[in-house]
């Protein structure tokens, strides 16, 4: 069930109405849980078993932590949780990748392993909910969180449908307590939730779709295009993935607000970042917070010398690339970003901080820094989007030839006024929670509603195809 579908609109209306008819938060949780499992089963009912396994293992591990203070036992319980969740992830997501990779490496040494790959379907959302349940087990092990004894509340935390299939990846400390207390309907929060959902849908169905039309055409036929066309295609894909993913996050967060649940911010206007380090504090925030809290800091973070710090940073980006999928393009993408970030780690951000300020020179430097950061990010997305490393290499080689200065193919400028308008709106709302949060607040109601209605009509007219969100494949 896609967010941008009539099915979801009807589903949401029913769940919303049923949820708020009940006053008791336990009954509300039960409704949300049933709705979440229906939502997940809509994709493929067989995968319900996986989320149930992950949920029950971590719930009982939590109860186990409650019953024992013995360090060894607690470590074993943690190992059980980590083992089960990562095994599920490893098998469904990486089994064929590891088999293929091992066979390729072996064949280069003249060895034929003769292993078979399996016909495995990747369960939607597995990368997200396994990380979410792991955050619970680790926080309880560290005694940062009290073990949950309410299985319905816990299952609702794991499977909460707005963020189940593509995040934000919620930390247990932030989300779980919200299911253990009374929730009352808040008109302002619900109204804000609807505005955020409208904005998320607009980003996904209008902006991302315009960019996707061009990006798909160019990347799928890259061998016939000039460098300038490929460069434009890269920019389109960069904007597409941002609007697609942040659009989903906005819809998820807005939907959460309808039920009185606050989900974490996942994007903080990353394309206005003036450095790569700043970019990674603003892009897919929930994933990087997870890696920081559960991998980087436990390994020692930056506390064990510069060399170890650099190694930890490289490891985080390697894991991040791998998390995105079982393909060397994602791993390479992650390592390229590690290459971008390492100089900042070694040299520090102080070079850039010298230019922060309000003079014209400083503003020019800031603008150029943001543009440069965007270009680095877009370049890395060539590898992310390509079918394989050979494809990425071919695109990069063609892009950086004299054909980069030829006029691109006709028809690529369709939609640019809308894309530019979109970024202008985001720029003027960058101090707010999301790109549309401050829009029209001081306007008369009729004018504000005209904009909302125009956006809604545009969404209905663009509903010709139900395109999946890019991050569902992760």
């Amino acid at each position, binding site marked *: 069930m896609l967010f941008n579908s009539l099915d979801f609109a009807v589903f949401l209306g029913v769940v919303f109405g049923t949820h708020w008819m009940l006053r008791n938060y336990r009954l509300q949780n039960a409704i949300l849980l049933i709705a979440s499992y229906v939502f997940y089963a809509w994709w493929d009912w067989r995968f319900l078993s996986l989320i149930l396994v992950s949920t029950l293992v971590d719930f009982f591990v939590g109860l186990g932590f409650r019953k024992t203070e013995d360090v060894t036992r607690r470590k074993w319980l943690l190992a059980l949780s980590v083992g089960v969740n990562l095994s599920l992830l490893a098998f469904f997501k990486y089994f064929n990748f590891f088999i293929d990779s091992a066979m390729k490496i072996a064949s280069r040494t003249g060895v034929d392993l003769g292993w078979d790959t399996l016909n495995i379907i990747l369960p939607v959302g597995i990368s997200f909910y396994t990380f979410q349940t792991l955050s619970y087990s680790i926080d309880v092990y560290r005694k940062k969180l009290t073990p949950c004894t309410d299985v319905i509340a816990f299952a609702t935390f794991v499977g909460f449908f707005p963020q189940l299939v593509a995040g934000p990846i919620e930390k247990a400390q932030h989300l779980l307590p919200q299911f253990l207390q009374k929730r009352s309907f808040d008109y302002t929060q619900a109204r804000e939730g609807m505005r955020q959902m409208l904005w998320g849908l607009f980003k996904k169905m209008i902006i991302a779709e315009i960019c996707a039309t061009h990006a798909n055409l160019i990347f799928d036929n890259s061998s016939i295009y000039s460098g300038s066309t490929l460069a434009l295609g890269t920019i389109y894909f960069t904007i597409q993935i941002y609007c697609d993913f942040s659009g989903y996050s906005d819809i998820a967060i807005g939907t959460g607000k309808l039920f009185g649940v606050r989900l974490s911010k996942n994007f903080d206007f990353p394309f206005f970042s003036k450095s790569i380090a700043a970019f990674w504090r603003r892009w897919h925030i929930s994933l990087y917070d997870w890696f920081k809290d559960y991998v980087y800091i436990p390994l020692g973070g930056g506390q064990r010398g510069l060399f170890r710090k650099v190694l930890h940073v490289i490891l985080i980006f390697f894991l991040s690339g791998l998390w995105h999928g079982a393909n060397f393009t994602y791993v390479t993408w992650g390592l390229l970003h590690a290459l971008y970030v390492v100089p900042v780690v070694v040299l520090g951000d102080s070079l850039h901080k010298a230019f922060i300020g309000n003079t014209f020179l400083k503003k020019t430097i800031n603008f150029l820094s943001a543009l440069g950061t965007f270009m680095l990010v877009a370049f890395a997305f060539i590898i992310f989007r390509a079918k394989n490393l050979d494809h990425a290499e071919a695109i990069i080689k063609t892009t950086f030839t004299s054909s980069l200065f030829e006029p691109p193919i006709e028809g690529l400028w369709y939609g640019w006024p809308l894309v530019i308008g979109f970024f202008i709106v985001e720029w003027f709302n960058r101090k707010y929670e999301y790109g549309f949060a401050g829009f029209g607040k001081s306007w008369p109601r009729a004018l504000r509603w005209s904009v909302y209605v125009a956006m809604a*009509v545009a969404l209905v*007219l*663009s509903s010709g195809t139900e395109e999946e969100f890019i991050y569902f494949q992760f």
Partner: protein
Amino acid sequence: MRKFITEIALFVLVTAVTFGGVVYLVNHLLIVEGFYELEEEHTTLVLGDSHPECAIDDREFKSVRNYSQSGESYFYTYQKVRKWLPNNEHVKTIFLEFNAGQVLTSVNASIWDDEHLSAKLPKYSTCMDFGDHMLLLVNNPLGYVNALALTMEQNWQLRKDSADHFHEFGWGTYITLENDGSEKLKTALPFTLAMEEVQSVSETNLYYLDKIIALCKAHDVRCVLIRCPVHIKYSGIRYESTFQHVLQTRYAEQEFLDYATMPMRLDEFADEHHLNVRGSKRFTEAFKKHLITH
């Protein structure tokens, strides 16, 4: 909560009305003078589905034009006729395919399933009235909205280019099928009376057939129902009794030319229910003789 639900309901209502207004405006903008005019020499039209589309070669006639189209139900044929007849007084006769496929409930899919909506709505939305739009919306809301989006895009493009050729753009034409279906027909299983099935009829499609007939009467246009040749192994024969029942009870007074069992050679069929170019040539000759004598 009440305030929130009221606001949502109001928003949905305003959006729906605005959406309807935008659709009406774009459709209305598409209509230019001469939009529905047909050539003066075409005094006879052939309409219907793929059976006449492949069967009657209008290149053999000066006064006949074949506007049949594959998968076309009477719902869409009516949209053409309602615009053509008032704007083309020179049209005197319509030959309209009438077969079991147009009578049974299975034809409803040709009116409002996703595939037909996305193919037909962009072509005929400018002709349809509110009731026609509501029929499609009620029976397939998501498919209708999706098709409407395609319609808006196409209409806008036609308006920008040259909308006055729209009536020539995909509203049906004779097509030739080159393939020889004899091998397939030799091995196909025959249908017998013992395999007859009774199926319910599509009241919706027959309602639009009635409207076509009434419109022809109102414009003093002769409306002749015709059934093009099909092979005896055509599966539609299973429903012959249902077809005959409808014919005898509802259209007994209507002129009907039944060529379904016209003797044809195996190699004149492309498949069980479509004539190929050889079959079309022979049938067109027979049709021509009928026109001369009647």
